[in-house]
Every structure is written in structure tokens, then in C-alpha cells.
């Protein structure tokens, strides 16, 4: 029964050849093909914080370095910090006898019980926004280096542009022996204003002087403390704790500091070939609905099996596959033998039913609201092929003969079904809905070959 729940058992081949379970595939209804995650371009929709679910635009996120302004991560265990309040008694500085109670706030982790008091941080007087940002000790130096490179880039750009303009010959053969070219040309008004501007710019852009930070061989000798004093493990930070605070990289736990929470993104997918949107989620981060959701499971019949079959080498056994129709239209399905040559995965021979299978339409009152399914007697079923029929699901029996002695048994076949385009495209010539016949290659993992003999490593004793 648990085999029914394993979604990696039945794999469909994407148009690029990759086998993925149906839940991971998208279906482009313009190309009429299955698309896997590689055939789809991922685009960032919006940024939001996983804790406070606050939406942020891309520009704002970039400015804040992809961090949430309100939420903090525990430096010890990376969970979210929550604000706790306590009351303290403060003595009035002017009159020692008067005492006032004041509410102060501190951050605490619910998982590892780390608090800001552990690192001797003063309690905040306001609930939010009271935490002081940590100053990067190298901020000035890094800012200086960044600006230096930006100026260099600007200078190079100006030089590149100058070269472009300088290539045009001025038709004036003035030799530049005495450096008089530009002066003379200016007098005569020969130089174009654009090239004049460029030259001026090039003169203006002066790259600042950045002193190189040279690496030196002189290192402080190791202090004797490393050999004599005991190492207290609880005082030393772990590598992951250190790297979470890249600017500081504290070695002692008493220097840990909460870091702001990283934002996560919502993405939308687009078919790489026809550039149409395949999935587009809702703008609101707390909503899980989709505006556009073209996933395979809503259009392609789903194949599963309930009972893992009893598979013995070279013996034919019956396997019941269930086919579920996700559409609201009656579907005609054919199971055809696989035409893929040299399929290394297939380890069994398969006998498929030759007749066409009819799947009832999906009735939402049955699947979603649990009402009684309609009687399946409307369909004439061959009991040797169709083992059961329930709402939009049927059980099909196929015969499998494993060709290997041990290991996983894989079968392959082609699922051929009708796809009806419910929402007609503007470009299509037909005004109504159009029906297409689609074929997909399916691989099913039926499980291990069972040994009916005592020892699995004695190939000699085998039932024939």
C-alpha cells in the first residue's frame, strides 16, 4: 500500500529526455509538450521574508542586501529570534527612593535558548527596531576599493569611446611634433564638440591613489596560551556560526551577534521554447494559489500502482496500474509498447492490453467533497483488463515478466491520450476547442525481484 504513496515510482519522459515523476513536470499547452525543470526558465517574481511574510521589491531588496529589516536569526542555531519583554525596576537618578518599573525587550531563540543577554547586549527599550546594526570594521576600506574600481571602469569606458571617435580621420595632416594639434584645431574650430568633451572627461577622471595592501611574512608568534590553558568548547564558535557573520567572524561565543534574516524569492516559470508563462503565483506571499498553473498533473492521466507485485525471474505476473483522469472530459487512453531502442533501464517484458481504455471525467463533487461516486456500469469493461473502476480512476492489469534475477524491475510503455485545449488560443484557426493526441513515454519501477529461493547469492537453485 505504501507503494501508492511513493511518487518516484512512475516517471514520465520530458521532451528533452529526462525522466521525472509527473508531479515535477510542467505542461506547455502551446507546444503541447512536457517540460521539466531544465526546459523551463526560472524568473524571480518577488522577494519576501519567510518569517514576517513582508513583500519587498527587487530594488529595495538589493539595497538591503536581501535581508529583512525586522526579523533576526539566532547566531547559535539559525532559527528565528523572537522578542521577549521583561519589567525592570529603575531607580530615579535624581531621587534615590523613587523606583519606576519599565518594560525592556530582548531577543531570545526558542530552540537553543540563546538570548541577547548572553552576549551582554543591553536590553532594548522599544519592541522593534531597537537593535543597533553591527558596523563592519572593514567597511571603509572595502568602500574605497569599490569606488576605485568604479572609477577605473569609467576611465576605461571613456578611453574606449575616445578610440572610436579618434579612428575617423580629420583630413588635416597636422603633425603633432610640438603638441599643437589640439590647440590649433581648437582655434580653427575643427575638433568636434563630442571628442572635445571626451578629452575633457578623460582629463578630469583622476583615479584615486589606493595603497596596496601587501601580504607580509611577518606573523605574530603563537602565544603560549594555546598550549597551557584548557580549551573550553562552549566558548568557541563553530565554523558555521562564524561564517554566518562574515564581516566579524567571531571566535568567541561572547562576540556573537544576531544577523538579519535572508529573504527568499517567489518565482515564475516560462517555457524556454515558446516563452509562454507556465506558472505564475499570487502576489501575496501568504497565499499558495497560482494565477497560472500549467502543470502536468492537471492534464496528463496519472499512473500509479497500489500493491507491489510478486515478481519472480522469468515468470509472468500480473500488475495492476491505476490511471486517474484529471480533466473534466472523458478521456480515451491507449497503452502502447515503448518504441525507445536500447533502453537500459527496462528490465522486464510487458504485455499491454490492446483495447482502448475509457476514463470517466473528473467529478469535483466526488473528489473534493467526498460524495458518493457514480455507478461505473455506464462503461462496458472487460474484467480481464479493467480490474476496477471508481469515479475517474480505473485499474488496468498488465502482465510483467522480469528479465533480471535481482534488482529493480522497470517497465516502459507509451501513454497515448487525448488532450483537449479548454481555453482556445487567439491564433488558432478553429473557433472552438481543439483536441490533440499526445504520447508520453512512461517508466514504472515495480520494485525488487523477490527470491523464492533461500539464498539470494546462489543462482544455481532457481525455480524453473
Amino acid at each position, binding site marked *: 500500500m505504501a507503494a501508492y504513496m511513493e511518487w518516484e515510482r512512475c516517471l514520465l519522459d520530458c521532451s528533452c529526455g529526462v525522466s521525472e515523476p509527473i508531479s515535477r513536470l510542467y505542461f506547455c499547452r502551446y507546444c503541447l509538450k512536457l517540460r521539466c525543470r531544465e526546459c523551463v526558465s526560472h524568473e524571480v517574481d518577488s522577494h519576501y521574508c519567510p518569517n514576517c511574510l513582508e513583500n519587498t521589491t527587487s530594488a529595495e531588496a538589493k539595497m538591503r542586501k536581501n535581508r529583512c529589516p525586522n526579523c533576526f536569526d539566532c547566531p547559535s*542555531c539559525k532559527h528565528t529570534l523572537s522578542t521577549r519583554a521583561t519589567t525592570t525596576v529603575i531607580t530615579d537618578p535624581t531621587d534615590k527612593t523613587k523606583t519606576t518599573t519599565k518594560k525592556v525587550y530582548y531577543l531570545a531563540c526558542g530552540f*537553543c*535558548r540563546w*538570548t541577547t543577554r*548572553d552576549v551582554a547586549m543591553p536590553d532594548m527599550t522599544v519592541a522593534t527596531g531597537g537593535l543597533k546594526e553591527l558596523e563592519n570594521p572593514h567597511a571603509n576600506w572595502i568602500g574605497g576599493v569599490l569606488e576605485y574600481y568604479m572609477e577605473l571602469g569609467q576611465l576605461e569606458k571613456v578611453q574606449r569611446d575616445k578610440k572610436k571617435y579618434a579612428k575617423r580621420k580629420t583630413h588635416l595632416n597636422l603633425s603633432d611634433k610640438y603638441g599643437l594639434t589640439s590647440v590649433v584645431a581648437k582655434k580653427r574650430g575643427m575638433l568636434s564638440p563630442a571628442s572635445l568633451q571626451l578629452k575633457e572627461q578623460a582629463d578630469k577622471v583622476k583615479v584615486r591613489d589606493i595603497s596596496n595592501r601587501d601580504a607580509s611574512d611577518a606573523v605574530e608568534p603563537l602565544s603560549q596560551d594555546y598550549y597551557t590553558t584548557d580549551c573550553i568548547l*562552549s566558548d568557541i564558535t563553530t565554523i558555521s556560526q562564524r561564517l554566518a557573520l562574515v564581516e566579524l567572524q567571531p571566535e568567541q*561565543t561572547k562576540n556573537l551577534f544576531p544577523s538579519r534574516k535572508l529573504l527568499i524569492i517567489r518565482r515564475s516559470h516560462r517555457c524556454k521554447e515558446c516563452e509562454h508563462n507556465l506558472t505564475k503565483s499570487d502576489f501575496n506571499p501568504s497565499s499558495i494559489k497560482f494565477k497560472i498553473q500549467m502543470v502536468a498533473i492537471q492534464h496528463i492521466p496519472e499512473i500509479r500502482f497500489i500493491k507491489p507485485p510478486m515478481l519472480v525471474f522469468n515468470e509472468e505476473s500480473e500488475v495492476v496500474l491505476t490511471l486517474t483522469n484529471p480533466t473534466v472530459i472523458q478521456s480515451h487512453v491507449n497503452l502502447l509498447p515503448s518504441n525507445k531502442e536500447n533502453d537500459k533501464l527496462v528490465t522486464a517484458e510487458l504485455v499491454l492490453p490492446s483495447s482502448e481504455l475509457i476514463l470517466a471525467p473528473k467529478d469535483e463533487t466526488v473528489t473534493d467533497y467526498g460524495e458518493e461516486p457514480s455507478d461505473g456500469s455506464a462503461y462496458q469493461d472487460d474484467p480481464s483488463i479493467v480490474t476496477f473502476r471508481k469515479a475517474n480512476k480505473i485499474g488496468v492489469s498488465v502482465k510483467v515478466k522480469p528479465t533480471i534475477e535481482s534488482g529493480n524491475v522497470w517497465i516502459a510503455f507509451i501513454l497515448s491520450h487525448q488532450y483537449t485545449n479548454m481555453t482556445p488560443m487567439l491564433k488558432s484557426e478553429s473557433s472552438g476547442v481543439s483536441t490533440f493526441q499526445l504520447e508520453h513515454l512512461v517508466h514504472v519501477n515495480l520494485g525488487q525481484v523477490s527470491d523464492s529461493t533461500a539464498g539470494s547469492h546462489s543462482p544455481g537453485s532457481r525455480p524453473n
Partner: protein
Amino acid sequence: MGQGHSRWRKRWQNRRQGAVVCAESDLQGDITIGAKTVVHPKATIIAEAGPIIIGDYNLIEEQSHIINKKVTDADGSTMCVMIIGNHNVFEVGSYVEALKIGDGNVLEAKCKLGRLTELTNGCIIGPMCEVNIQETLPENTVIYGSNCNRRVQSDRPPTQALQLEFLAKILPNYHHLRRPTKTLPKLNP
């Protein structure tokens, strides 16, 4: 060490300060429960190998097991007394066999504490953490995570005094309470 003959003693004779022990809790053996301790229904306290002495202001929640387990290969002459201090919290589903527990500890849900471990004061054993090596945990240790990571915190965990007060008022309205079977005998001069 009588099993089936359940006697638990209240430390104070004054019932106002007494412990709140629900009738549906399972108490077996020689157990002493201190003042203001609350024992929820479905808590199990079994004193097999010796008496259990539980201090004041403790909170023993549902489905928690405090067992002074009889070790099969030990000789029957030695009596192991399990001593639990004050202000401890035994959350839902915790399983404790440790012989010595200090003050102010919090044993969170579904944790397991073996017989050989000793807790000092202010320790927090996180949920689903199993600690059973022979060790005395230093004060204010926090054990958390699926790998039972540890760290030492600077503060003690806050006490549950408010919760205890509330429970002491509300529990008798909904549950029958156990009456103490015997009060402590007077000490010899």
C-alpha cells in the same frame, strides 16, 4: 519498595501549601512530593528500586515518567534514592531515570534522561534529546537539536511560578485530587 501499596507523603501538614496531585496520575512506591508541586493526570512516578523525593514548586506534566528503575544485575541490598530538586519542569512525554536532578531544570517534551546522568541547576534538555551517558552536566547547559548540540547559557531559565499558581487553582475544579496517605514522621531529637 512496596509495589501496589502506594503511599506518598506530603511534607507539610498544612494543606494550603500542599502539592496538587491529580488522582489519575500513576504513583507507585515510596514517593515524597514537596509543597506546591503540581502533578498532572496521566503522569507516572514509579519508585521501583528505591524512594523518590521530589522537591517544591515542580511541574510534572502529562505522560511524563519519573522512574527509579530497578537495575536487574544490581544487588538488592543497595537502595537508590532518586532526589529531584525544586522549580523543575518535566514537560509532556519526558522520561526520566536520572538519580539526581538539581533545581530549576527544564526537561522538554519527549526527552529521555538516562540513569547515569546527573543534572545540576538550570539545565535545559531539549525536545526528543536523549542523554544517558555518565556525566554531571554543568550548570545552565542547554542541549538542543537532533544532534544533541550543547551550549552554556548565562541565565537560568525563567521559573514557571505563574503557571503553577494557575494550575493549583484550576486543576482541582476539573480533577479529583489524591489525598496524602501519610505525613512525615517527626524527627528524633
